[in-house]
């Protein structure tokens, strides 16, 4: 039986791990390679790096981090943040990333998604969608949540599936950093409209939130940062908890 995945996410800035609370107020919490190794040894099903390096001069730091991590962790590694082109994707894959997540570039030019999935295969192309509720709908935000594209998130998710994305990483902007749980409504609506797996992100504060993301949000995988990051829960604890709630996990 296919297991639901738990994916710890590490926000990386200038080669160091940080975690944003609503994308601001960053705290330093260590070396990404060491962190990733701790997570993979602890049973993480995948590791996700989100590069939030702002300045162009330091953008190459992520390549070094990915290269070092991939030599020590033998579970899938997803890398996103600042990915602009097929060439960027190629570079990350060559450094040892297994999947690359594309956010703003996919909104601005969906050809990046179709071209890269043709070139490298859908299995390594994840489209990251930052969505924020506006009335009854959700809109897609870009540039780390700063710009509203005005695009309907559910329509956009369908379009990205058609363009060849292998998975969608859905982050609720309303919930990110709040620790009050995933936007279940958003997750389940998108999941029911598409046939590729979704990864739920944004808002995890406790282990029940992970359960809800899978059971109610129909996510194939759940991504979280803070609850693992500051030692509140280990990945192992999370898996045991999900298992106790009848969710299939790899233990």
């Amino acid at each position, binding site marked *: 039986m296919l*297991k639901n995945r738990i994916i710890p996410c590490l926000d990386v800035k200038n080669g160091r791990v940080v975690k944003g609370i609503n994308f601001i107020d960053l705290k330093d919490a260590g070396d990404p390679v060491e962190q990733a190794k701790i997570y993979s040894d602890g049973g993480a099903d995948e590791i996700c790096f989100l590069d939030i390096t702002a300045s162009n001069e330091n953008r190459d730091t992520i390549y070094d981090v990915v290269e070092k991590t991939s030599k020590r962790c033998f579970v899938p590694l997803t890398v996103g943040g600042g990915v602009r082109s097929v060439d960027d994707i190629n570079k990350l894959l060559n450094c040892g990333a297994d999947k690359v997540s594309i956010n703003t570039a996919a909104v601005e030019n969906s050809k990046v998604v179709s071209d890269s999935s043709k070139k490298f295969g859908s*299995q390594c192309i994840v489209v990251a969608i930052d969505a924020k509720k506006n009335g009854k709908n959700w809109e897609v935000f870009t540039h780390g949540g700063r710009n509203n594209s005005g695009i309907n998130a559910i329509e956009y998710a369908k379009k990205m599936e058609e363009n060849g994305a292998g*998975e969608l990483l859905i982050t609720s902007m309303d919930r990110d950093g709040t620790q009050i749980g995933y936007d279940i409504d958003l997750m389940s609506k998108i999941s029911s409209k598409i046939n590729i797996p979704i990864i739920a992100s944004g808002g995890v504060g406790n282990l029940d939130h992970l359960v809800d993301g899978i059971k109610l949000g129909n996510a194939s995988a759940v991504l979280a940062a803070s609850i693992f990051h500051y030692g509140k829960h280990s990945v192992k604890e999370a898996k045991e908890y999900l298992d106790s709630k009848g969710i299939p996990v790899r233990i």
Partner: protein
Amino acid sequence: MNVTIVDYNSGNISSVINSFKEVAKDKVNIEVTSDLNKIKSSEKVVLPGQGSFKSCVDALNSIKGLVDTLNEVVISNKKPLLGICVGLQMFADIGYEEKETKGLGWISGKVSKIDNQNGKYKLPHIGWNQVNIVKDSKIFKDIENNSHMYFVHSYEFIPKDKNVITATTDYSSNIVCSVEKENIFGTQFHPEKSDKLGLQIIKNFINL
């Protein structure tokens, strides 16, 4: 000993290289190449594969003499070969991804899309699934039945002769996830991404 990972522009093979180097340490030389002479002279060959069946077959064919060399090494000289993911799928006679494409024909059969049962099963089949070992295989030494391995694929290999199947995994139906035919081995899952147990499979192959 030399183990060659065939580098034929089949997409991302960094993880395959890293995992084999991790297992080999300094004892075994891991060569990553499309050089025909190097492939011929190596003791074991690894055939990775990512992307579509067609793109991988096209990439193999675009390197002059590569398919002939692989046939010589694997079929005539019977050297052990491990195919991973689309690398395994290409053992088939024919694949139906994108368009009908001829495979290597090493293990008779076809590669078709997994039946998603009208959307009941998401595709690609991504994540950790259990392998049901149906027949002893040399690469499963010290691997317990129902161990978890990492999968990512939408197509499955359906061999004609069921005797080559060494393991299946349950996703929509019993999908073939490991085959062994004489010196030819293949896994649909990614041992290079399957943590310690995956590295054990790689070790088993290197130690054959």
